[in-house]
């Protein structure tokens, strides 16, 4: 573990009980987030990116369980923490921003009180002081007329304003790490640009690290320092954003990169696609989960490739190809 590592997932595996038996949603994930950096986790539906994020704060619910591995945050293994110890972490040292601000804000509590609550809980502030601080936080996230907004309810705000409220809440206790799970997927593109720019500026200003969960490779290119690509519960490639886009190595990453129409690409040309469908997690193929869709698949792919380094900062899980 390098000196400035803030969070490290070691060989993390998560299973869910479902009607169709145990499903391994996250398998042997090893991942590190350094202080102050933005790490993007990308993948398609069912790749395990959100489950990985939720597991850090132990928000998996009844059906999900970490069955192997460690979540090292500073010097503690969060997997050994009790619920009350976790409560001291959530919203305090690690906070989370969800996709849908309408469902993650309480509809019957004024937003000022919701932003102030973590300060009362974790900083022992009085409600009066916490509300004053909340007003300052709303100003930080560029909400116009913050004093008047304190008394408003979520339904009185636009989607972009609600997400700003979520960010204000997440920042309230000056966490070391913010996890944002598809924070702008439900928002229009101009609002998305505003929110992500705000998130980037504020994490830089406070020195917080950011884990950005997204399916949008454009967002990753604009905002991430490093990227981990997930497929069927495993990390298949990780590298700095510059390296990953300049030279994607894993066949899945290559397929993803070439299948998006980009504003700088050739318009109208046939898009390269990845054949077939993402696998069913309850019924994964033996060996490399991507093999059935991979044009380079060969005999060796019947065993699961481990994440190994190509260079110091570029890793992949692939048996290689010519």
């Amino acid at each position, binding site marked *: 573990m390098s000196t400035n590592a803030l969070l490290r997932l070691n060989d993390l595996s998560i299973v869910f009980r479902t009607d169709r038996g145990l499903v391994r949603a996250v398998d042997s994930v090893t991942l590190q987030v350094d202080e102050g950096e933005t790490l993007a986790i990308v993948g398609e*539906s069912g790749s395990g990116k959100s489950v990985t994020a939720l597991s850090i704060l132990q928000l998996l619910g009844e059906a999900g369980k970490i069955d192997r591995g460690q979540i090292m945050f500073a010097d503690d293994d969060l997997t050994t923490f009790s619920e009350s110890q976790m409560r001291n972490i959530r919203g305090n040292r690690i906070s989370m921003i969800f996709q849908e601000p309408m469902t993650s804000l309480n509809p019957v509590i004024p937003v000022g009180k919701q932003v102030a609550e973590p300060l009362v809980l974790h900083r022992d502030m009085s409600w009066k002081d916490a509300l004053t601080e909340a007003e300052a936080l709303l100003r930080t996230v560029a909400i116009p007329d913050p004093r008047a907004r304190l008394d408003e309810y979520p339904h009185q705000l636009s989607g972009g304003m609600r997400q700003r409220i979520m960010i204000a809440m997440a920042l309230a206790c000056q966490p070391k790490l913010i996890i944002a799970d598809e924070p702008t997927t439900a928002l229009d593109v*101009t609002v998305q640009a505003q929110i992500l720019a705000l998130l980037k500026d504020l994490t830089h200003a406070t020195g917080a690290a950011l884990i950005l969960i997204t399916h949008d490779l454009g967002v990753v*290119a*604009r905002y991430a320092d490093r990227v981990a690509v997930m497929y069927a519960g495993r990390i298949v490639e990780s590298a700095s*954003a510059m390296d990953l*886009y300049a030279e994607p190595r894993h066949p899945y990453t290559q397929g*993803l990169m070439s299948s998006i129409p980009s504003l700088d690409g050739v318009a109208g040309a046939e898009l390269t696609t*990845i054949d077939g*469908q*993402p696998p069913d997690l309850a019924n994964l193929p033996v060996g490399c989960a991507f093999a059935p869709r991979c044009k380079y698949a060969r005999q060796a792919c019947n065993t699961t490739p481990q994440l190994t380094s190509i260079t110091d900062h570029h890793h992949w899980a692939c048996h290689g190809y010519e």
Partner: protein
Amino acid sequence: MSEVLLAVEGLKVHFPVVEGVLISKTVGSVKAVDGVSFQIHKGETFSLVGESGCGKSTTALAVLRMLDPTAGKVTFDGTDLTALSRQSMRPYRQEMQMVYQDPFGSLNPRMKVQSIVGEPLKVHRPQMSNSDYKKRVADLLDLVGLLPAMAERYPHEFSGGQRQRIAIARALALEPQLIICDEAVSALDVSIQAQVINLLMHLQRELGLSYLFISHDLSVVRHISDRVGVMYLGQIVELKKRDDLFSNPEHPYTKTLLDAVPIANPKLEAERAEPRIIGEVPSVRNPPPGCRFNTRCEHATDRCRTEAPAATSRTAGFVACHLFADAATDASSSAA
């Protein structure tokens, strides 16, 4: 350019705002679509882009007469659809079909694929024999890249991408000339989205289809379109050929939109300036007077706050902004 298939002129769709419970009265209107004009040529893909609430989907519904327009004309293949009765509209409905965003919501879970894809045939071609019907459904499934044997299955047995293929097969059943795709690839994962985009483009070449493509995703729109209209608060602010729009956006709103879209290339992104985006979209219920974008435009003048800009013509399109209105009179002579 080829023949005009669909012409929309001065289309308006206003929804009344009603207040009061026992004694209700109309207190105003939401002008969801307010004076929209465009044409779609045979074999062309025309896209409407814009953010939530800009009126792009309402425009589509009004074209299909699923909503009755408040004003304006929709001409399909020379016939004014707005003048037709519900009954005489029927044959034209066969010519225009729709593919929706959510392939989970748009397919009846209790019907087999056979009946879903074949239903338009049962309604509009009741005289068709059973064997012809089955053959046609099998051909349609084949056309969209599914196996004919899949006709016996139910929607839940398919993935999102396959369901969207089923929805496309249904839309093709009556051999329409125009297909309206309302965010048809927006809910799909990127690897699957690429497959469906390729399919739509392939079908267009094969069958000579025209598309009205409605989307908020500028990258997809750039990929698939011949011409593009950018909508803001119920109006088209700029309409141009694809390459003209993306390489030379003129309207400040179009520029804002394009700046806001991140490009999947960290090198280019590092060189790009952080987009400057002022404020939020005002309520459609109460749009600003004059140019509707004036509250968010860094070039706004007093004229923009009082007078709505007229369309200044461009190659196969126009831009509606006062910045270009003055220059237009000088430029039009040289441009022509």
